[in-house]
């Protein structure tokens, strides 16, 4: 039987990559992702994981090496964070456009300047439109489970897209949690082998990442868009199969006391767990509040989001990133777009908070919800409010 053990989430993530039997890992260490790649380097050096570990000179090279590895049909993993993710930015588009099933853990970190190694979602939002499938995780078990699912989703013949797993820097990556690592044989059965349909091979030469003149570029982009949207079916199917096999269940949009709530808070990532405690406390005080957690970020789960909020009067969205000079938090913008044409939809209030590693406590979430309700009733002159800023 699989044992439930206390371990650091980064180490557990590395163990999940080992369980998935990755063939190639190309990564450059950066805080707060370091413990993941350190652990993987150790596993490879000790002969516990039979993989090629490529210690590259930058994140740009890390992702480029991953392209080559995935193109040859190898099961490929990397991890990055913050500035590192930004440095590999242009190559992220290449990975998705070339339909290469790379799995990457992004340990969310605020972007400079000022330099911050602590967590928020500004790195994630900067890579929103890179064409990757993107999942947000809440706790250590979730992270391990999504790593396994990510390989299965990415390598599915109907998908063949890279997958990013977001986990909050420090708040999630560096905590020690009780985690169950599945049995190797179960994982092997769940994942199967990677069978990239057109790998680089001398017996059948192909050209990848060729140039696309104006007569064909639009078609390539539409093909990519259709493919990413359709991948949602496979993501759902994978989570169902995962639930059957491992008895843990995941949804694109998950609720907590949300069914009958008049006021909903929407969060992403590990802060959702603190928010749940706040919701629980407010419920005990008789307030009809609930929580919606967005797990699947790309492809965006339009129908699930609409269904989840349709009975609410007010929806408060907490973003951990700012779209400077824009309409507020990037997640809130998307939620607004998804709901704007719906006949029945809640009022929407945008909050930005938890930037650069600043905590939002249970009290903090209560304050956000209380202030959100006030804005919902009286309105606000601002596009969004920033939580906890000292005036």
């Amino acid at each position, binding site marked *: 039987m699989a044992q439930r053990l206390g371990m650091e989430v980064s180490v557990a993530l590395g163990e999940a990559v080992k369980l998935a039997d990755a063939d190639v890992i190309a990564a450059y260490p950066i805080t707060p992702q370091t413990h993941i790649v350190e652990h993987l380097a150790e596993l490879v050096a000790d002969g516990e994981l039979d993989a090629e570990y490529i210690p590259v000179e930058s994140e740009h090279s890390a992702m480029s090496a991953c392209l080559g590895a995935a193109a040859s049909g190898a099961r490929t993993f990397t991890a990055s964070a913050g500035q590192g993710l930004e440095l590999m930015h242009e190559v992220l588009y290449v990975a998705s*456009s070339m339909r*290469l099933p790379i799995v990457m853990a992004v340990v969310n970190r605020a972007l400079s300047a000022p330099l911050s190694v602590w967590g928020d979602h500004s790195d994630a939002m900067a890579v929103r439109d890179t064409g990757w499938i993107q999942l947000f995780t809440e706790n250590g078990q979730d992270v391990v489970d999504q790593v396994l699912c990510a390989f299965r989703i990415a390598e599915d013949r109907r998908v*063949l897209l890279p997958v990013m797993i977001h986990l909050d820097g420090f708040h999630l990556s560096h905590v020690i949690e009780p985690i169950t690592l599945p049995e190797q044989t179960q994982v092997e059965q769940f994942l199967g082998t990677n069978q990239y349909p*057109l790998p680089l091979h001398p017996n059948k030469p192909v050209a990848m*990442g060729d140039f*696309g003149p104006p*007569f*064909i570029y639009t*078609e390539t982009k*539409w093909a990519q868009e259709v493919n990413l949207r359709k991948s949602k079916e496979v993501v759902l199917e994978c989570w169902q199969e995962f639930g059957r096999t491992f008895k843990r269940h995941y949804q694109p949009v998950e609720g907590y006391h949300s069914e009958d709530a008049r006021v909903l808070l929407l969060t992403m990532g590990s802060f959702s767990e603190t928010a749940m405690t706040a919701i629980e406390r407010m419920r005990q005080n008789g307030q009809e509040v609930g929580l919606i957690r967005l797990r699947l970020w790309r492809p965006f789960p339009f129908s699930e989001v609409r269904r989840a909020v349709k009975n609410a009067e007010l929806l408060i969205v907490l973003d951990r990133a700012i779209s400077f000079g824009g309409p507020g938090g990037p997640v809130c913008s998307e939620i607004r777009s998804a709901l704007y044409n719906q006949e029945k939809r809640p009022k929407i209030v945008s909050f930005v908070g938890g930037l650069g590693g600043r905590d939002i406590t249970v009290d903090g979430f209560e304050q956000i919800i209380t202030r959100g309700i006030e804005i919902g009733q009286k309105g606000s002159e601002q596009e969004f409010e920033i939580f906890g800023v000292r005036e």
Partner: protein
Amino acid sequence: MAKPESELTWRDLEIGSIVTEPGNASQYRTGDWRSQRPSHDFAKCIKCGLCYIFCPEGCLSQTAEGYFEADLFYCKGCGICAQECPTGAIAMQQEEE
């Protein structure tokens, strides 16, 4: 490619727009980028082959008589051959629509 360019749809593309037919770049007409074409005065040509060596497109080839001629399907009209010719045997002429 089986279909002409203008009829290709997004459904015709391989996964990730992979090109499975090796060497099909040779079907790509770069000659229509040209605004000038090289014209050869073979009376001045000493068959030294400098134009052949310098052509960045690799579109020059030697005829049976030993002269060098550009394949206008590929020639982009850059004029390097005319610039390098030691006897002035190549002149660039304006393309007419």
